[in-house]
């Protein structure tokens, strides 16, 4: 059973619908106590870093999610802001993130051929695995997903299996670190690509 954290900010319904569509059992987690009954967790997030952390804090999610990620070591997927809060913090805000990944989030400053590109990065874009990804089907020649963000994960640590995307410069659009995974894009808004992605996440056995 996949639990989708519902703290007021994130496309929870779309995620549940997509999981339902691909036949994967999923439930909306409206209370941290519900984490006890699931085997995998999705942490969505949209909006601003501090607002998401504040919502998680106010909802009593911080310690239970920390326990789930670091002690129970359940497979956990952060989407968009959900990925960003796994880091130490963001230029966007003042609050600390969970710190499960060393590094923080920086504002995109995309430049191509001397021209500054629009921010936020709001479009479909290609995602390239730097090493084999447990979530991207190798039979699909090009992986595209929908992005909508202004900040990106700037994590220097070498232990990450990364996905990268080019938008006026390359940035890390996804990572895997042990039982933790994060994606900057929105699989729930990436139709067929998203469904394939979630199918893989549902079966992922982190080493």
């Amino acid at each position, binding site marked *: 059973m996949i639990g989708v954290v519902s703290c007021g900010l994130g*496309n929870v*319904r*779309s995620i549940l*619908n*997509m999981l339902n*569509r691909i036949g994967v059992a999923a439930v909306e987690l409206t209370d941290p106590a519900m984490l006890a009954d699931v085997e995998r967790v999705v942490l969505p997030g949209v909006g601003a870093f501090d607002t998401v952390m504040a919502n998680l804090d106010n909802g009593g999610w911080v310690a239970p999610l920390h326990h789930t990620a670091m002690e129970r070591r359940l497979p956990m997927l952060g989407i968009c802001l959900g990925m960003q809060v796994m880091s130490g913090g963001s230029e966007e805000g003042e609050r600390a993130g969970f710190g499960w990944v060393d590094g923080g989030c920086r504002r995109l400053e995309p430049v191509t051929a001397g021209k500054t590109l*629009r921010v*936020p990065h*709001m*479009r*479909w*874009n*290609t995602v390239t695995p730097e090493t084999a990804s447990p979530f991207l089907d190798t039979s699909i020649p*090009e992986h*595209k997903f*929908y992005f*909508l963000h202004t900040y990106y994960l700037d994590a220097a640590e070498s232990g990450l299996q990364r996905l990268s995307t080019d938008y006026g410069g390359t940035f890390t659009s996804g990572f895997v670190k042990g039982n933790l995974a994060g994606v900057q894009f929105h699989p*729930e*808004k*990436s*139709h*067929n690509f*998203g*469904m394939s992605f979630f199918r893989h996440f549902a079966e992922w056995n982190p080493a």
Partner: protein
Amino acid sequence: MRSTRVIPVLLIDGEGCYKSIRFKEPRYIGDPQNAIRIFNDLGADELVILDIGASRNGRGVDPQWIADLAAEAFMPLAYGGGIRTLDDAAVVLQCGVEKIVLNSVLEQAASLMTECVRQYGSSTVVAGINVGRDWLGRDQVHWHGSASKSRQSIEGLAQHYEALGCGEIFLQSVERDGTMEGYDLGLIERVAGSVGVPVVACGGAGSLDDLKAAVNAGADAVAAGSFFVYRGQKRGILINYPNDADLSSVLP
């Protein structure tokens, strides 16, 4: 990868989807949730849902309904129709919609654009302009469906909206709507040439070549209703969307 966005437009009135010709003679197409599911399966880049009854009937936004539609869409969604206040905008965005389209409200209250941009950012706010022609062939803006019309420079209006901060212009040709005879390329060229924000062209698409012509005329994205909803001379209803390979072979 292809950067041109190809966007189906669903017109909703009450609980059904409709398709018009020149903004008239609405024909029932089917259930919107079903249409959305089909566009999910066919991999549409984005979807625009416009509540065409809202403005005409003075109806506002129905959050439950919009949330149900947004939950079905596995691609980004833009929603317009009846958004008259900042609260309406908030309600719509909280339903899981990525962008709002402001149109008729701007006739009297263009300041709503500014407020929405300040609160949500430019990328979230789309300015819709419906363009017709008067009997002398001069540009007219159609408001509230086509209930009121004003003769004015479309380029000027687009520039005004750009100055107010809109993220893109959704440019609909009333004349070409539903005809499947090609986009109004002259209109697209004039408007795209006068603003820096992306222009989404709508009205008249009947073939992949039409989409290509619109992009060549300056459109950043191409939207269509009939093209994705009808098939054949007799306009049988068949919700369709070209595959990525076909689109990428024709569009940049």
